[in-house]
């Protein structure tokens, strides 16, 4: 209203704030419902994270269908995470067809603070299908059943759809169990992730 010469030429829109509050209220309630249902493990979410290094720990991982092979990963040119690596990283790709994790903790360092995500206990573990993880460090106490070590990465079969480059060292196993798992990851994808007992928080400590 302060500018008399443009209101005559163009209709001035306005926001109906009560309608905004109503819409926002309804959609916020639906969101709260989604969060609760995910926390109860009813809804499975799908994940794909890459670019940021992040840490994953779990008390125990049990998986059926396991593959592992190496890839050379190239960072985006000029990435601040390059350090003295020249932008190249050798990463271990681990693929698990069906995984169960107890006491999963995942943290992403955002510089100063960490986004921390925890889920799953012994009774209601986190379950994931087609979990594919790129990491530069994996530690834990692992045991495998029916493991084939030194198989060409392009011929791996335990996780349908996931194979490495030809001529690259790979291994696969029918089942895997890792206790006290700790991974430094660069990328994770999972087609479904059930996260019972989900908690997201910002905290000064990682996992």
């Amino acid at each position, binding site marked *: 209203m302060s*500018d008399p010469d443009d209101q005559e030429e163009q*209709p001035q*829109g306005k926001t*109906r704030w009560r309608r905004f509050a109503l819409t926002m209220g309804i959609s916020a309630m639906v969101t709260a419902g*989604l969060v609760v249902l995910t926390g109860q493990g009813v809804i499975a979410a*799908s994940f794909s*994270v890459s670019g940021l290094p992040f840490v994953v720990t779990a008390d125990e991982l049990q998986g059926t269908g396991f593959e592992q092979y190496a890839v050379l990963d190239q960072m985006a040119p000029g990435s601040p995470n390059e350090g003295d690596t020249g932008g190249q990283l050798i990463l271990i790709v681990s693929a698990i067809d069906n995984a169960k994790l107890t006491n999963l903790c995942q943290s992403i360092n955002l510089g100063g603070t960490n986004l921390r995500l925890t889920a799953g206990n012994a009774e209601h573990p986190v379950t994931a299908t087609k979990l594919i993880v790129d990491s530069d460090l994996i530690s834990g106490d692992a045991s495998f059943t029916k493991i084939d070590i030194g198989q060409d990465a392009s011929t791996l079969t335990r996780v349908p*759809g996931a194979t490495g480059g030809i001529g690259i060292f790979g291994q696969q196993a029918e089942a895997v169990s890792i206790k006290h798992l700790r991974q430094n990851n660069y990328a994770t994808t999972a087609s479904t992730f059930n996260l019972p007992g989900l908690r997201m928080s910002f905290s000064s400590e990682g996992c």
Partner: protein
Amino acid sequence: MRARRSFRRWRRSRPFWGGLFIVAAAVEIFLTVKAPLPVVLHVGMQGLAGFLVPIIMLLCGLLLWFSPVSRTFYSVLALLMALASWVTSNLGGFLIGLLLGLIGGSLAFAWQPGPPPKPKRVVTEGG
């Protein structure tokens, strides 16, 4: 000065802020899901959905600006996509993009155009 004024006129004749919030939400969600394409294709349909949802949100935001006549459709679609991103795209870009999308969608849904321009100097109040 004239450019600023015409930008303001453009801004006020459409759900500008709603669209802007939706575009910001789409970009934030998209940045969290930028996995290497071969990996996405391995994961299959659900990995693809993780990409598609923020792309549809981006289109909704832009179309709210450039085709504000259909704002109801685009704002409701943007709201639904923001909610769907919880399941498909890293918990809605770790919740941030989801909330931005809800704010933007609600703003655009609540926006209404002003009365059509009245012919100059023939304005008579009454009735």
